[in-house]
């Protein structure tokens, strides 16, 4: 077997002896446990990032009003004297909200949770290619998170140069008053980068080398395809950021001048490095959600996904195009107009694969036997909000329009439409859909629907009006818009948005309650509660150590719903064909020669 090396050298799933508490729950090498560890820690960071967002909206909704008395005692005078948020602390809030959400909530939720849970189960592997490296990859994350959290408590407070940490603002403490906080920010992200790279090495190797017999490339479920493309982006983009972070750290600590203006360093170089990483990063945050959506929509419409191959090619195309568009973040940074035009064209080209995916989702839903349950609602919301976010993206991709709306709340609206409306709703769809496989029980459907409808409503109330704020000129990251006369008229809208955000945040209590309550009290799920055809559902929930009682053999594609030749409305990938004639058509690929060195 190809995997003997891995199983021997990594104490892999071949050993079925009982492990102690520590090896089972803390330093586990089982991909399903690591997925759950990622889930709980990332949800905690999501909560933290959300609370920071609430504080930001408190300041913007009611500028200068002291925080409510019951939270006032938390903040020392360096942050919020008398409960009034200081401008410096506001900078930290904005920076840390984005940092925690992007690096510690969304990325771990996408790649960490679902990469670990779905990849081995959907391709029929017994575990990851490198279970021990997988464990290390998880345990780096809380360490980095701890460093990041610690930066709130050092002198000068947490980093305040924005999550993009543009130099020279970030290269020297004299601009923001933040010294140690910025250094800790850099160290934390450098450390976190190792987690992402080790994870990505694992995902890529696992998908390439660990597939069950018959699992050809075009029988791989789209969620795994999306995570595979994402893993490549992580693998190649994160080291770019790490390189830039290290240079910036040198500027901060030993006094080099890569990005500082004093020594004829190049602040613009930082922007290039950051966005060369940053735009693939954007797709790291959205591609997995696209994969989850494909999975959920096909399953809950009881139809094969419309255009499976084009879905795969579109994701690969997005993955490639993501590397040649970074300049569209920098139209206002000073750029040769001809080069700007090039970036406009490459950026707008991304609309093509995105539109292919969108139309394929609609084509899948079209005349399907639609089951309106929570996963589907979240998935359809993903599609709808992704369309809005995608269309506002086209505004910004056009350099002449971007000059007007650059660094305004229009950008804030756009990025929250793709990252909250897109990624987060996709994650909700994924959590509700695969919760039974992770924990063996279903989440409560009624609470799930209430959570969905309220979230969808408050979400749009919060973020859609931000387009208006932006078009009317309200700057992104501004502490108090009322300091400008022309923005004072926007205060009622800002207050409305703040109330909406508070309600959106409060709605998540329903989700948290449902999540925790269902762990013990949810309906027992059984192997395949959604009657889905992928391999993941053809094994007990939660799957045993080693995942499959015996290695599954794959006979067909992942979305054989309502197949005319099959009496049930789903046809599991590993169900043998009824007759030997059909076996010819669906036979697995020929077996490989023994691998050298094996």
């Amino acid at each position: 077997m190809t995997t003997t090396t891995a199983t021997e050298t990594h104490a892999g799933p071949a050993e079925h002896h009982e492990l102690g508490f520590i090896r089972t729950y803390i330093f586990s090498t089982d991909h399903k446990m690591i997925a759950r560890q990622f889930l709980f820690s990332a949800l905690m960071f999501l909560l933290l990032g959300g609370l920071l967002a609430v504080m930001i909206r408190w300041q913007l909704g009611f500028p200068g009003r002291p925080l409510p008395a019951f939270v006032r005692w938390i903040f020392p005078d360096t942050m919020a004297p008398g409960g009034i948020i200081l401008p410096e602390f506001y900078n930290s809030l904005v920076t840390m909200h984005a940092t925690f959400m992007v690096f510690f909530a969304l990325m771990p939720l996408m790649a960490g949770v679902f990469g670990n849970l779905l990849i081995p189960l959907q391709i029929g592997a017994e575990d990851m290619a490198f279970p021990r490296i997988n464990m290390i990859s998880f345990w780096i994350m809380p360490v980095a998170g701890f460093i990041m959290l610690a930066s709130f408590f050092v002198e000068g407070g947490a980093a305040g140069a924005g999550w993009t940490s543009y130099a020279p603002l970030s290269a020297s403490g004299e601009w923001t008053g933040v010294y140690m906080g910025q250094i800790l920010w850099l160290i934390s992200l450098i450390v976190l980068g190792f987690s992402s790279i080790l994870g990505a090495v694992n995902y890529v190797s696992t998908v390439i080398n660990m597939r069950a017999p018959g699992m050809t490339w075009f029988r791989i479920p789209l969620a795994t395809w999306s995570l595979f493309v994402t893993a490549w982006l992580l693998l190649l983009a994160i080291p770019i950021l790490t390189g830039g972070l290290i240079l910036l750290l040198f500027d901060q600590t030993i006094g080099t001048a890569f990005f500082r203006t004093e020594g004829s360093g190049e602040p613009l170089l930082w922007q290039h490095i950051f966005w060369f990483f940053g735009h693939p990063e954007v797709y790291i945050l959205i591609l997995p959600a696209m994969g989850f959506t494909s999975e959920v929509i096909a399953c809950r419409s009881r139809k094969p996904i419309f255009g499976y191959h084009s879905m795969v090619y579109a994701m690969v195309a997005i993955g490639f195009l993501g590397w040649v568009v970074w300049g569209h973040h920098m139209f206002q940074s000073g750029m040769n107009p001809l080069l700007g035009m090039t970036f406009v064209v490459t950026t707008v080209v991304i609309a093509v694969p995105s539109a292919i995916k969108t139309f394929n989702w609609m084509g899948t839903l079209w005349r399907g036997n639609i089951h309106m349950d929570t996963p589907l609602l979240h998935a359809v919301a993903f599609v709808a909000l992704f369309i809005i976010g995608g269309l506002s993206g086209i505004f910004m991709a056009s350099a002449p329009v971007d000059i007007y709306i650059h660094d305004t709340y229009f950008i804030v609206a756009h990025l929250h439409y793709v990252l909250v409306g897109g990624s987060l709703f996709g994650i909700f769809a994924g959590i509700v859909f695969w919760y039974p496989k992770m924990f063996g029980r279903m989440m409560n459907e009624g609470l799930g629907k209430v959570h969905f409808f309220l979230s969808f409503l408050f979400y749009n109330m919060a973020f859609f009006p931000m387009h208006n704020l932006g078009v009317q000129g309200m700057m992104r990251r501004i502490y108090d818009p009322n300091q400008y006369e022309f923005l004072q008229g926007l205060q009622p809208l800002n207050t409305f948005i703040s109330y909406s955000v508070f309600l959106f945040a409060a709605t998540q209590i329903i989700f948290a309650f449902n999540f925790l309550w269902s762990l013990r009290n949810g309906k027992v799920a059984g192997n395949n509660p959604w009657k889905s055809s992928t391999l993941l559902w053809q094994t007990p929930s939660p799957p045993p150590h080693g995942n499959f009682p015996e290695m599954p053999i794959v006979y067909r594609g992942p979305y054989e719903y309502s197949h005319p030749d099959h009496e049930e409305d789903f046809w599991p990938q590993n169900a043998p064909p009824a007759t030997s004639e059909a076996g010819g058509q669906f036979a697995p690929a020929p077996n490989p020669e023994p691998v050298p060195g094996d």
Partner: protein
Amino acid sequence: MDRKPMPGMMVYNLKLGMWVFLLSEVMFFTSLIGSYVILRYAHPEHWTDPGVILNVNLTAGNTFLLICSSVTMVKAFAAIQQGDLKGLQRWLLATILIGATFVGVQVYEYIALMGEGFVPMLDSYHAVGRGNPHEGPSLGGPLYGATFYAMTGFHGAHVTIGVLCLIFVYVRALNGAYTAEHLEGVEVIGLYWHFVDLVWILLFTIVYLI
């Protein structure tokens, strides 16, 4: 039916994982080299002609050493492919010693350069050039120093890690952990070692010769 997994890349996991990891290493060095290229084009006045500040001859010799260590690494792998454990141990030891020598020469070079004022820091940069009295005018500029130490330093760190991994493999080889059938550890550390060597040839060219 035969229950073998799909062929994949037809190599064992550890080797595939190392290939994939090396791709990410490529991107890491790309970020450093890319920064260097942009900074140098933007500020050519910070650079001097080759050999004015840097000791090209010394490093050329060091480069030759590192290339030799790739040869000894290949010999080590070839030995264990023949089942020659003694040969593996001998050639691994040679690779370790040459690798350590490379790092040692680099440290010596750093000390000499810093003594001549060639430092990465903006404020204390005052490079007088090789063989000049120490009170000469400053040559080049701090970006030269900063990019030089960043690029060669991170390469040196990679060599150091490689030497440590080789020592680990060597100790295992002394315990007889490898045979002609089980030589994955040797092959995979060899891949890493050759990669580090290759990167150095690139860095030597653009940092010292151009």
